[in-house]
């Protein structure tokens, strides 16, 4: 049987287009067939998780049964008319939801890089969706549990492998309605444009930076040992590769969603134009950073303020930044460079906020003009690229001779 990485090669796109055509004609005439959508989802999931990767397919099925049961049980508990809404039951539910992902992330660290048998492509992204479901059920913003809708939300195939991370309530609204013809044509136009920009990003720019240039500069940097100009080259080349590869992929996922009449949120908004680190996280991998903002940072701050853990609001915000970003580092994987990357961004947020406070206080003395704006963008860009150098793991190879 054929087996593909999502959006990995031209054949995938041809098959995708053929499969989407009847669905698109349907939407154009105001009809949405959930039956047909499920069928093509099934086919594309088979292409991703079947064939030689059948073991990951089994892992996915078991994972789904586990998580749907978990959310169903928690939801039943919360829907009881006299639900006590105990904090510990909520915490235990979240921990149970995260356990499979934690096992998958920790296994390579303790077993010399071996991957866990319960892992599959996209497990992190599905876990985000499950955790958000439990949190919103706790808050009472999600009041009913529909196992089928929840399953459709988790398995929405255009975004299953690497996001963008949608929100359940938003997804269901699109999934259960049909856009007007005018609106749908607009979506198709945007979707097709995104897919073509995606081709340019992923198959041309990311190819040039990642496949053509990166091995050369990495080789030079390894020859030079320690700090070298070639290492600076690695930093910028890797950063460009990372952006164009991931932004390209995200554009495919968003574009294909649009063709299906689902407005999956965008993941990038010109991140290299950010004027500070806070601004950067509002533009880079947005669905991830907004997820962290809404489900970790804000909840953490809420909890700490309500229980008056720290006297000062500045301390509260700072502690929450560092914890938030550290969790993100751990989420990327249990290696020193992902964790340092998280810590680096946590501290960068702390410094950023301190500067913003200082600037507000001394507005009169601090110049503000086109030059300072460009300087801010330049500085932010370099701080970000440096963080990506940490993230890349190349330093691990350079300093400790570890194979990538």
């Amino acid at each position, binding site marked *: 049987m054929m087996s593909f990485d999502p959006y990995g090669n031209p054949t995938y796109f041809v098959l995708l287009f053929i499969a989407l055509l009847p669905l698109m004609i349907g939407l154009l005439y105001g009809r949405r067939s959930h039956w047909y959508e499920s069928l093509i989802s099934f086919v594309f999931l088979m292409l991703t998780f079947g064939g030689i990767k059948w073991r990951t397919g089994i892992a996915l099925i078991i994972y789904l049964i586990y998580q749907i049961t978990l959310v169903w049980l928690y939801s039943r508990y919360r829907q009881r008319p006299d639900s006590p809404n105990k904090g510990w039951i909520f915490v235990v539910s979240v921990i149970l939801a995260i356990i499979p992902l934690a096992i998958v992330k920790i296994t390579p660290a303790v077993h010399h890089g071996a991957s866990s048998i319960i892992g599959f492509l996209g497990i992190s992204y599905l876990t985000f969706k499950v955790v958000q479901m439990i949190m919103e059920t706790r808050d009472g913003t999600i009041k009913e549990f529909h196992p089928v809708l929840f399953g459709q939300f988790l398995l929405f195939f255009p975004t299953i492998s690497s996001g963008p991370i949608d929100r359940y309530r938003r997804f269901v609204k699109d999934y259960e309605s049909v856009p007007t013809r005018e609106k749908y044509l607009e979506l198709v136009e945007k979707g097709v444009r995104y897919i073509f920009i995606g081709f340019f990003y992923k198959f041309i720019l990311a190819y040039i930076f990642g496949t053509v240039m990166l091995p050369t500069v990495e080789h030079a940097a390894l020859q030079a040992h320690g700090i070298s100009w070639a290492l600076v080259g690695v930093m910028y080349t890797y950063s460009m590769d990372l952006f164009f590869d991931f932004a390209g992929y995200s554009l495919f996922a968003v574009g294909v969603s649009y063709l299906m009449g689902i407005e999956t949120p965008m993941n990038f908004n010109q991140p290299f134009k950010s004027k500070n680190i806070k601004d950067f996280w509002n533009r880079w991998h947005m669905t991830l950073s907004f997820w962290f903002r809404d489900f970790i940072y*804000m909840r953490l701050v809420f909890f700490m*303020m309500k229980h008056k853990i720290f006297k000062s609001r500045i301390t509260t915000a700072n502690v929450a930044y560092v914890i938030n970003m550290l969790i993100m580092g751990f989420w990327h994987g249990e290696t020193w460079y992902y964790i340092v990357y998280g810590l680096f961004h946590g501290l960068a947020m702390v410094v950023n906020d301190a500067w913003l406070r200082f600037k507000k206080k001394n507005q009169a003395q601090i110049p503000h003009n086109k030059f300072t704006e460009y300087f801010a963008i330049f500085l932010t860009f370099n701080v970000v690229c440096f963080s990506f150098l940490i993230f890349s793991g190349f330093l691990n190879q350079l300093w400790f001779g570890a194979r990538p």
Partner: protein
Amino acid sequence: MDETQSTVLSILQDLTGEDVSSNMDTNLFDEGILDSMGSVQLLLELQNQLGIEVPVSEFERSEWDTPAKIVAKVESMQ
């Protein structure tokens, strides 16, 4: 100005140090007046001063990004 509106505006002034009453439609997030931290404080103050419980997952930024929207939101919840 009704009571809810003046309470909301005074909470915002306490939190941000800025009087926003003359710019009811200014985008508080784009202008850097409010951030996630400020949003949480706002929710806590609404709870303390007006007795309105807003869970964090109800806080959809685009629905709370101007003083006018916040006032409307609070009034709809009273």
